[in-house]
């Protein structure tokens, strides 16, 4: 696995923890590469590497899920630089939309001309995780068939993210 593949793999792990959907569901949207590229294009490779590095450290240091979640909350979500980026990743997966980062973030860490609110693609709109989360079809797309609205939603948690204790690189 090369560095690029390795980082993309890390991005999937991070996305799983942030969205509560497993890697199967994330791959299943067909959007992994698009979202990873969008993230890199807008916040820059250095910030992405920093985010993934912190995530890896949190993963390797966590003895259990509680410790892991605390680490994510404190080291990523609570971080002035990484927090807004992580929140954007969540929104990206759920809605297929990249939302413009907060003004304070843009002033502090650089303004990308591409950092505007936009759908990554028309496919990203239909592949938003929110539709899976509520078992509905995206409005205007993926027609579910006549009369399907009379059936209750079939929401299941088969594709939930699961905490897996990581072995640190040193101990491998």
């Amino acid at each position, binding site marked *: 696995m090369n560095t690029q593949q390795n980082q993309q793999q890390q991005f999937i792990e991070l996305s799983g923890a942030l969205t509560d959907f497993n890697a199967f569901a994330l791959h299943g949207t067909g959007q992994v590469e698009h979202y990873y590229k969008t993230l890199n294009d807008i916040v820059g490779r250095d910030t992405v590497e920093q985010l993934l590095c912190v995530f890896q450290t949190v993963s390797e240091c966590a003895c259990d899920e509680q410790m892991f979640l605390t680490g994510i909350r404190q080291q990523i979500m609570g971080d002035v630089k990484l927090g807004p980026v992580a929140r954007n990743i969540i929104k990206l997966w759920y809605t297929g939309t990249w939302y413009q980062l907060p003004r304070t973030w843009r002033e502090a860490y650089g303004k990308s001309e591409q950092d505007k609110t936009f759908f990554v693609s028309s496919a990203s709109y239909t592949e938003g995780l929110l539709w899976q989360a509520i078992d509905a079809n995206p409005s205007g797309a993926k027609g579910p068939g006549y*009369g399907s609205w009379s059936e209750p939603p079939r929401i299941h948690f088969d594709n939930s993210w699961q905490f897996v204790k990581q072995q640190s690189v040193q101990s491998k």
Partner: protein
Amino acid sequence: MNERIINTIDDLYQMLDAAIQLEHATIPPYLTALYSIHPETNLEATAVIRAVLVEEMLHMTLSANVLNALGRHPNVLSEGFMPSFPTYLPDGEKDFQVSIAAFTPETLETFLNIERPSKPPKNTSSTCPNGCITRANHARFHLDAIKPLKSPTYSFYSIGDFYDAIIDGIKFLETQARECGETIFIGDPKYQVSNKYYYSGGGEVIEVTDEKSAIAALNLIKEQGEGKAELGEDTENQEFDSEGELSHYYRFKQLQFGRYYQKGDRPSNPTGAKFEVDFSKVYPIKTNPKLSDFAENPTLLKAAKDFNHSYQEFLGIINAAFSGHQNLLLGAVCDMFRLKEFASQLIRNPISIEPNMHAGPTFEIDTSSRGSLNDKVGQTCVHKERA
């Protein structure tokens, strides 16, 4: 030698059972190739494959209507109905196999073979019935469709030839029956799938009640598949059926040319709008994936099993719809959209990163659970109808 392939009503039943099986057998390969295409890419190829796929569903339904008109229900859950891929279909001088695979130039070539127009080879043996050719390796074919009755040595050259044999059989048997003041069309019309419940599926369903409507239904299948003319001479407009629609064979031909046909074109030279077919914008599915390929990935394995289970349940609903519960087709359409999502998820998931190899639906139906499933589907149907 008697050139008629169908001589008794049982022969006709068997050929129609085979027709339904044959139409269905094309669906997993078309469906997989279609969903292997990256979203938002290859729009023309996507549209062509999708249009053919839904017409195969229509063909399956039309064949079922003909069988029901003769007083027999189809059984799409019978043993061996779902082929084990790769499988063989009718072919001519050189055999080919049909696989569950990604959309590639080789897959497109297979699709052209499936849909090819009738073109009996020149050296056809005089001992063969019309539309058939002699094969030495007959035992290799798995589908009933290519095991013509009472002969271990010949097969149909094209699917169109196969339907011609059925039409000949219907004409022969109905003429015989009428001489005795009877008819072979003794099925209850209530079993006919109608346009009330069959919608957006590749055209209008024909309800079959007599010889005329049976032949109309079977001709529609033939024409949508291979067009109205015989291949061999490069004549104008032979790509189109009697309704002016392009047949499956020539729709796929367009993908090879990267160019649409328009009225007045010869098969060898489409002159319509050009478009691009990008085979690199396709998920690299492992060809003919099996559940055993996912042994090391429990999530993939579960998803693939779930897909097969859902597909099996779906076939159960189709069975019920073909046996008098056609209102269940409305729910079956919703199930189809769900199946599409499940299949797409599998196809977009890598089995391994190096080499880059993706999963896909395996279409392995567990025969051991069929009995209980039939019962379950039957109960579900009754429940839904009451509701």
